[in-house]
C-alpha cells in the first residue's frame, strides 16, 4: 500500500471508531438547513432566495467544526513528528489526510444537498448546480481549513484563532458557490462561478498541502 493510501485508510479506521466525531458536521449541517425555514416561515418565497446561502454557509460552518482536530491528535501522540521525518513528502501525507477528512465530513453534505435544496424550495436546475458547486467547493473549504489548522497546530488558543484566520480564505468559495446556484435559479448560466470554483479547487489541491507542510515543519522545527 502506498504511503498516501496508508494514511487515508488510517483516517477512515479512526473515524469508524469515533463515529460521533465525524457525524457531528452532518448533524450540524442538517440542523442549520432545517431550522432556517422555521425561522423565516416555511412557505415564504424568500426561502428560495436564501436557500443557496443557507446551504453554503451551513457547509462552511460544518467544515470548520472538525478542522481544529485535524493535526491535534497526531501532534499529541507523536505521529506528526514521525511523519515529518518520513521518506514520503509531508505534503502528500497531508493531502491524503485532507482527502479522507473531505470524504468523512463533506462528502455526506454534498450527497445530502439535493434533498436540502428541494426542502428549501429550489427547483431541479438550481439543485443540480448546488450539487456540483458543493462538489467543487467543499474540498477547497477542507483544504483551506487544513492549512489553517497546520498554521495553528502549536498555538494554545487555536480554537479561537482558526475561524478568524480561515473565514476570509473560505469566503471566495462561498461567494462563487452561492452565486452559481443563484444564477441557475434566475435562469442565468452558472458556468462562470463554477469555473471559478474549479480554479479555486485546483489551487487548493496543489498549493495548500505544500503550504500546510511548511507550516507544520515550522511549528515543530
Amino acid at each position, binding site marked *: 500500500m502506498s*504511503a498516501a*493510501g*496508508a*494514511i487515508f485508510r488510517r483516517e477512515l479506521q479512526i473515524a469508524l471508531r469515533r463515529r460521533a466525531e465525524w457525524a457531528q458536521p452532518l448533524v450540524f449541517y442538517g440542523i442549520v438547513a432545517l431550522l432556517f425555514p422555521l425561522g423565516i416561515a416555511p412557505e415564504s418565497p424568500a426561502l428560495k432566495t436564501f436557500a443557496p446561502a443557507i446551504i453554503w454557509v451551513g457547509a462552511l460552518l460544518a467544515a470548520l467544526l472538525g478542522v481544529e482536530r485535524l493535526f491535534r491528535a497526531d501532534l*499529541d501522540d507523536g*505521529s506528526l513528528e514521525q*511523519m515529518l*521525518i518520513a*521518506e514520503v513528502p509531508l505534503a502528500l501525507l497531508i493531502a491524503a489526510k485532507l482527502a479522507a477528512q473531505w470524504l468523512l465530513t463533506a462528502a455526506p453534505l454534498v450527497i445530502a444537498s439535493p434533498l436540502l435544496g428541494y426542502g428549501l424550495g429550489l427547483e431541479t436546475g438550481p439543485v443540480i448546480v448546488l450539487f456540483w458547486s458543493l462538489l467543487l467547493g467543499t474540498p477547497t473549504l477542507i483544504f483551506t481549513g487544513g492549512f489553517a489548522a497546520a498554521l495553528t497546530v502549536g498555538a494554545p488558543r487555536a480554537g479561537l484563532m482558526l475561524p478568524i484566520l480561515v473565514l476570509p480564505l473560505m469566503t471566495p468559495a462561498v461567494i462563487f458557490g452561492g452565486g452559481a446556484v443563484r444564477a441557475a435559479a434566475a435562469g442565468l448560466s452558472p458556468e462562470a462561478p463554477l469555473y471559478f470554483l474549479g480554479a479555486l479547487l485546483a489551487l487548493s489541491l496543489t498549493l495548500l498541502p505544500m503550504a500546510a507542510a511548511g507550516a507544520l515543519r515550522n511549528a515543530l*522545527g
Partner: protein
Amino acid sequence: MPRLEVHQLVVSRGDRIVVNDLSFSVAAGEVLHVLGRNGAGKTSLLEVLCGLRRPDSGHIAPQPESRERHWIGHKNALNPVLSALENLEFWAALNGERIDDPRAALAAVGLQKAQATRPSGQLSTGQKRRAALARLVAAARPWWLLDEPLAGLDVQGLDLFAGLLAAHVGGGGAVIVTSHQPLPGALATLRSLNLSAA
C-alpha cells in the same frame, strides 16, 4: 555502513544554545550512550540527527537517510484509538516496508495478542513504550536513534531492551541512545558521551 561523523555541531532552541561545538563519531556495531542533565541538549541532538531539527552550524556526514534510521522520541507515535498492531502496520505501510509477521514483532517486545489488539490508549505506559520499540524489530534499519527509550519499562522490559540492543549491534547496526539511567545489559561496544561535561 559508513561511520557517522558529527563535527562541531551547534544547536539552539529559541535563543538558547543547547549543543555547543560538539564532535563525535559512531561506527557500525557501536552503542553511543548520550548522557546529560535535563536541558543539556540530548533530545535536540537526536532531533538533529534524525532530521527533525536543523543545526545552527556544524555538519553530520553522512546524515542517516529516512530509510536507514529509526527514531523513537519521547512520544510513542501510537494513535490511541488504533491497536498496537494497527499502529505498527500503519507505520510500515507509510514507510513502504513489508512486515512478514507484525504479531511476532509485538510478541518480541512482550506484547501478546490481547495487548496487541486492544486500543493502544488502553495500554499502560510501559506497554505503549514496548509497542513503540516493536517498530525497531519489525523493520530492520541500521541506525537506531532512541530518546529515553527506557522510560516506563519494567525490569523485564529493561532486559528485553538490552537483548534488542545487543542483537542489533551484534548484527552490525549502530545505536545512539539517550538515557538518565545506565543502559541495561553488558555491551562491549558501549561508549558514553556526557553533554553536561561538553
